């Protein structure tokens, strides 16, 4: 779907505060305003069974301006970004991008129902800020101790195998210009907090 084809729908959405916030948070033009509520997304979704609302129902909440319900839904947190819905959506809506937008608002406003998902993302992103690279060992150690301690005994064998075969290193890799990377990310954070009419005040970014 071209951006041009969406213009009329965007026009209709111009005064829709929450929809606008979601579209803006997605930072792309995901096209959610064109949703026709057909339900193809939920019918295609491999993790719909774990969601409290199907994607279609979540989009209905957004389109109805039901901000709190939408932001407190676990649906975007169960999204796998597998794009089954996206390639099937008759309106060409880029659904994972919408999910990222909703999640980012929910995290900012601390409404996310899914601490595990938000914490995993934060831990992952922390490592990027520190090293410029992902650091698998540090990430899983921190995450499992905090969120899945009971799974650890069952995963010991697998973990040892990974370490023994050099698939899990104890030392993080660090890029050379990590300061430059941080400068880029800080500038992006400033741009993000720039004009933001119609949403609740920002409470700083989680990272």
């Amino acid at each position: 779907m071209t951006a041009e084809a969406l213009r009329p729908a965007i026009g209709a959405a111009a005064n829709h505060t929450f929809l606008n916030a979601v579209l803006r948070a997605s930072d792309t033009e995901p096209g959610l305003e064109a949703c026709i509520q057909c339900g193809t997304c939920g019918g295609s979704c491999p993790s719909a069974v774990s969601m409290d609302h199907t994607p279609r129902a979540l989009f209905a909440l957004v389109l109805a301006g039901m901000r709190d319900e939408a932001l407190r839904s676990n649906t975007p947190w169960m999204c796998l970004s597998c794009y089954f819905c996206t390639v099937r959506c008759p309106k060409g809506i880029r659904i994972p991008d919408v999910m990222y937008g909703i999640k980012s608002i929910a995290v900012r406003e601390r409404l996310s129902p899914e601490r595990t998902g938000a914490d995993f993302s934060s831990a992952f992103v922390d490592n990027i800020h520190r090293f410029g690279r992902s650091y698998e060992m540090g990430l899983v150690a921190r995450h499992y101790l905090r969120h899945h301690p009971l799974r650890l005994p069952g995963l010991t064998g697998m973990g040892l195998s990974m370490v023994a075969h050099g698939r899990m290193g104890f030392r993080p890799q660090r890029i050379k210009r990590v300061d430059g990377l941080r400068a880029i990310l800080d500038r992006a954070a400033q741009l993000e907090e720039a004009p933001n009419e119609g949403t609740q005040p920002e409470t700083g970014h989680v990272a």
Partner: protein
Amino acid sequence: MSEYLYYPGCSLEGSARAYAESLAAIVAPLGIELHEIDDWNCCGATEYLTLSPLRGHALIARNLALAREQRNGASTLVAPCSACYVNLAKTDRYFRESPEFGQQINSALAADGLAYEGGALRVRHLLEVIIGEVGLDAVAAHVTRPLRGLRVAPYLGCLVSRPDLDGRWSAHEQPHELDRLLAALGADVVDFPLRTSCCGGHMTQINPETAWELIRRLVESADHAHADVMATVCPMCQMNIDAYQGEMDRHYRARYRVPILFFTQLMGLAFGAAPESLGIGTEVVSPAVALARIGLEVSPPAAEQSEPPTHERRQKRPQGLPMPAPLESER
């Protein structure tokens, strides 16, 4: 020699080092020269986009900007990891689609003196380069040890043929490009309708029940088709199917043992390379039984000495997709 810019991605230096090793072993015969982008950073997977799409795209775009700076004649950026590939391809695509997006990301990149221009690079998954640019004839010409008799499930995963915003794949859901590559290696490619179903991605870390169910579907389907091994093009898929298969087995009280190898490892084997040089032996689920079918001996870890895949009635009822149950006579 064709030259390519190369973005390895974090997992190729860690959990998927077998992918990196096997890739290194096949590039020379294929006439590919890879130039790793100097000082590349993590693409952020889906985690950075989750916290902030704008910062997430800026993170991805730093790699595109570095690659553009270092391109030196090469114009194609190759990523072997499907998640990295989809991120790089999407950010490039959004640069091309939306001047506002490009302006915003470039003003972030300017903080470290970088800039990107949509379309400056062709972003490709490694598999696309091998199939589309090297070509299956050239691949077949290097086969000295055909994988005859090895039953392989062609597991492409989600993020190569989807979202495929530029429409280069034959289909989003049942593309057969990987099947054809494996057939060119002489393998016996089994019917694997879940070829682009999701492995669970990061759900092993967030909501394991969801991940176990998705892993079960894939492993059960491969086992049902009597695949000896699954072939993958993605470190995340490899990790979930290989490292978490045991946990999934315990959850469902099942005893699957379906190994999964990177397609580059299978290519290396078909080209006659020694298994150790391809990172074979680093798996959690040993491919020893599978590789014995093509006359290769690799030592299986003590715990799982050549135990054939077995079906056991699951104690817990899985939810979701219907999946054919094994026939009584096959048990």
